[in-house]
């Protein structure tokens, strides 16, 4: 689970968690604290929540789907605070199964359904979402403009 960015990046935080629902909240804690160190945001609390939710959805899917039935794996997440343009970049990597994201239907918002809101929420809440499936090293690239 190597990352593309050099280790010296001064505004990059890397966190690597077990692929278990129990500890995904830790990512939310990181994001909340990261946002508390970014000044001058409009509605910082809402933006922080939205990024937390998007990352939670991506990682919960990795636990429930990518690693389903596999030996316990890990999820590697990096957060980079960019200044120009002002944005938060989140990269998420797993070594589980990949899938065909284009085959996933949009949720039907006319009637409440039990499944299918996860990726919809990520698309709505983030400015970019790129999924690069790659056998044993799947990559989610998320961007939130600030």
């Amino acid at each position: 689970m190597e990352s593309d960015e050099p280790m010296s990046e001064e505004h990059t935080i890397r966190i690597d968690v077990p692929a278990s629902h129990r500890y995904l909240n830790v990512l939310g804690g990181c994001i909340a604290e990261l946002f508390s160190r970014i000044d001058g945001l409009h509605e910082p609390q809402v933006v922080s929540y939205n990024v937390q939710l998007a990352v939670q959805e991506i990682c919960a899917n990795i636990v429930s789907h990518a690693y389903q039935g596999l030996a316990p794996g890990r999820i590697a997440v990096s957060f980079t605070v960019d200044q120009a343009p002002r944005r938060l970049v989140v990269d998420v990597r797993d070594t589980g199964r990949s899938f065909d994201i284009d085959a996933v239907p949009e949720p039907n918002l006319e009637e409440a359904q039990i499944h299918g809101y996860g990726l919809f929420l990520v698309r709505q809440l983030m400015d970019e979402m790129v999924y690069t499936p790659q056998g044993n090293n799947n990559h989610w690239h998320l961007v939130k403009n600030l």
Partner: protein
Amino acid sequence: MEIIITDHVVRIVVVAPQDRVDAFSAGELRERLDQLLAEGTSMLVIDLGNVPFLDSAGLAVLVSALKRARQANGDVKLVWPKEEAARRILRLTRFDRVFSMADTAEAAISSF
């Protein structure tokens, strides 16, 4: 003239989680709701007032409770979370149209 008067007590149960409802903790909320539904409670208020964070696994629990309650001719009403960002997610997913929403548990109870 015979007049029959009967008293009816409708039991409405308010369930108010106090923490994050996510893929880890949603199972516990689902179990509580399933238990209430299995016991015959079909009028439920889920008070999200103090829930600081709700993911799609949390949303799934709300919908499955709604489906089961309506099958039993009951309903699930939601109390808006205080957290503004969470309120917006309920609007984005149109949950505020599928569920009847209230500002407080009392308002939700009296709307049954």
